[in-house]
C-alpha cells in the first residue's frame, strides 16, 4: 500500500466520489473504507499488481475502486440493484473490475464466472457471515488471505460485539485460521476485521 506523508492513497488520478487527489494519487479514506481503516490501524494488506481479488458485498464500489487501482483484477459481487447500477458504471470505466450481481449466500449462482483468487474480501450485511466465508473457501488460492469485516450488528443487534466476533471465529475454524482480530474503532463502530488464512 502506498502512503504519501502519512496519507493512504491508491494509484489512480481520477477522483471517483470526490475524494482528494494527492500528487496524482487518490486519497483512500479510512472512514469510508474498512480496508483503509485496517491499514491505518497497523494491519496493512499487501496489494501487489499481480493480485486477484474476490470482493463480496461490493456495494457502490468505493473500496472496490481503490483495490482495483492496485491489483490485476477484482471480482465484485453485490446483490442489491441500486448499488449494482453504480458498480456497473464504475466497471465501465475500469477494465479490471468484473461486476457480478448475485447473492453471496448462494455462490452456486455465480461460481461458473469465478476463478481462484489470492484475496477474498468480505463485507456483507448478513447474519450468516461465517457461513458465507466458508462457502467461498474453494475460491481461495493456496496461501491466500481472507479478510472478513464482521458486521456484528447484522448478526446480533444487541449482543456484545466481541462475543459475536468470537462466535464467528469459532464458526470459521474448519476452513480458516484467524491470524488477527482488529476492532475498527474509531473509523467504523461495531465492526471487527478478521485477517485469516486458509486451513489445509
Amino acid at each position, binding site marked *: 500500500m502506498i502512503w504519501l506523508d502519512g496519507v493512504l492513497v491508491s494509484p489512480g488520478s481520477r477522483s471517483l466520489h470526490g475524494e482528494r487527489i494527492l500528487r496524482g494519487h487518490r486519497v483512500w479514506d479510512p472512514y469510508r473504507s474498512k480496508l483503509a481503516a485496517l491499514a491505518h490501524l497497523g494491519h496493512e494488506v499487501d496489494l501487489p499488481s499481480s493480485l486477484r481479488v474476490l470482493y463480496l458485498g461490493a456495494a457502490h464500489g468505493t473500496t472496490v475502486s481503490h483495490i482495483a487501482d492496485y491489483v490485476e483484477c477484482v471480482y465484485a459481487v453485490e446483490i442489491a440493484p441500486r448499488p449494482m447500477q453504480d458498480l456497473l458504471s464504475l466497471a465501465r470505466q475500469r*477494465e479490471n473490475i*468484473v461486476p457480478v*450481481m448475485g447473492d453471496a449466500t448462494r455462490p*452456486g449462482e455465480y461460481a461458473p*464466472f*469465478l476463478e481462484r483468487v489470492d484475496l477474498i474480501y468480505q463485507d456483507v450485511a448478513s447474519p450468516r457471515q461465517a457461513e458465507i466465508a466458508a462457502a467461498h473457501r474453494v475460491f481461495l488460492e493456496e496461501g491466500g488471505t481472507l479478510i472478513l469485516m464482521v458486521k456484528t450488528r447484522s448478526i446480533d*443487534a444487541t449482543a456484545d460485539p466481541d462475543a459475536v466476533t468470537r462466535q464467528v471465529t469459532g464458526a470459521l475454524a474448519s476452513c480458516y485460521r484467524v491470524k488477527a482480530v482488529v476492532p475498527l474503532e474509531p473509523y467504523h463502530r461495531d465492526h471487527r476485521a478478521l485477517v485469516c488464512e486458509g486451513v489445509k
Partner: protein
Amino acid sequence: MRYSMQRYWFGDVMEDTCTRAEGDTAALADRVAAFSTKMEEFVPLRWEQAVLCGTAPDRAGYLALLRQVTTLLAERKIRAWYGRGDALLIQKVRMLEDLDRAASLVAERFGEWDRVLHPGPAEEIREPAPRRALEGARGRAEGAQAAVIASVDGLAAARAALVEEVTTGAREILPNCTALVGGLVAARLLSAAGSLDAMARLPAASLQVLGARAALFAHLRTGSPPPKHGILYQHHRVHNAPRNRRGKVARTLAARLAIAARLDCYRGARDEEFLKRADEAVRRAGRGT
C-alpha cells in the same frame, strides 16, 4: 479422485477436454442463467481453460469477454427487479414522504419570516401556525415570498397527484393489505419492508413495529417498554382505539397483515373470505371482548 464435468461460462470442461459454449454475449449469459451449480462438486475454473476452449485468445481477452457477460446478466437482473410494480410504488411513497417533509420545512421557515415582517399580535389560533402564516400572507406577499407560496402550492398539487397514484398502485399491488389498512398505510409498510418479497417474509411482530425502529432498539438495548406500533399507528383502528387497547388492536391487525402480505405476494388477488374474518378479528380486538 473422479472428475465430474464442470460447467463454466465459456464452456464445459471434462478433465482436459473442453466443449466451447457457442453464441454471442447474450447466448453465453442465457446459458449460465440456466445452470444449477452444486458447490459440493464444483471445481473453480482456470482462465487458461477458456483459451484452450478457443473462447478467448489471452488473459485480457478473457476478462473483457467475461465482463461483457456478467454485465449483461446484471443489467437484466436490475431491469427485472425494477420492472416489478413494487419498486415503482416504493419510490412513489418515499417521494410522498419527502414532499411532506419539504413542505413542512418550508412552511415552518415561512412562518418565522412572516413574524419578522408582520410582528403584530397573532390572529385567532385555528390552523397550525406556519400554515396560518402562509394563508395569511397570500395576496399581500410579493417578490421572493410570493414565489415561495407558489412553490408550496406546487408541492401541494404534486402531493395530491401522488397520493392518487400511490393509492391506485397499492390497490393493485397490495390488494389485501390495502383492504385491511388502506392504500397509504399499506404502501408505507411496503416501503419500510423494502420489497413485496421481503414484506411477505416478515413475521407479524415485525410488521407491527415497522417504522418504530428507534423505540424498538431502545427497548432491546435498555429494556424500556417495547413499542406497540410503528407505521400501523396511522391506521384509524389503531389510533382511534382506547389507549389501553391500542396494543391489542395493533397486534391483531399485524397478524392479519402478515397473512395479507403473503396473499398479495404469492396470489395477488383479493381474498374476500379472509378479509371478512380479518375485519371481524380486528373489530373484536377494538371492543376488547
